[in-house]
């Protein structure tokens, strides 16, 4: 019985996928959402918007500032949990 249900739900999900796949952007088209030209903004206006000549740093610390804050928090949390796990400071 479970087998029949799973086959039916698989067919339903497959039909949804096939229906949606028709709406997908054409492969390799320059109008794809992945080519949404955000890099033009970065290369042309990053200096006047952030004041930093290095585009990588401008993206890392300004446009993606929350992301970098999260990365630093991850490293901080790793160090803190290391201290909790191996709390003995003297050699042992």
């Amino acid at each position, binding site marked *: 019985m479970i087998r029949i249900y799973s086959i039916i739900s698989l067919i339903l999900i497959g039909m949804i996928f096939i229906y949606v796949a028709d709406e997908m952007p054409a492969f390799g088209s320059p109008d794809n959402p992945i080519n949404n030209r955000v890099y033009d903004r970065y290369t042309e206006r990053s200096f*006047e*918007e*952030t*004041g*930093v*000549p*290095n585009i*990588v*740093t*401008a993206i*890392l*610390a*300004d446009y993606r*500032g*929350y992301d*970098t*804050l999260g*990365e*630093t*928090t991850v*490293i*901080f949390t*790793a*160090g*803190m949990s*290391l*201290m909790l796990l*191996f709390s003995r*400071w003297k*050699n*042992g």
Partner: protein
Amino acid sequence: MANGEITSIVIRTVSRIIIPFIQIFGLYTIIHGEASPGGGFQGGVILGTSIILLTIVFGLEEAKRRIPRGLILVFMSLGLLIYSGIGLLDMLFGGKYLEYTRLPLPLSGHEISALSILCVEIGIGITVMSVIILLFFYSVRDEDAHGINA
């Protein structure tokens, strides 16, 4: 000689000379992260490796005497505090969180933004450096270091 210390005078002298240069290069990598390849993460790791070299050559006891545990804890928290504190300062002066141009400094918006990004990189560097040192201190023991002299 304490346990786990390298006795070769060549290695001791060379690392005594080279450790400050490693640290200067790490600082350069952090400070010049705005204008050239580099940044807080990379510079922090370079600063951490200088302490790792010190630990390998001069022993764990000496390194722990120079860098106490509380200092690592304070630095680890300080870096993150600088980063998030700049974000909170921006909020305090009427901007969004991490919107750098709102600080009330007598500079143009460009320069305030660049200065904030520099402070953010320094904060990242401090945190990464402390965590690297902490990782090495906890993963090495003096008994493991005996093999180097043998």
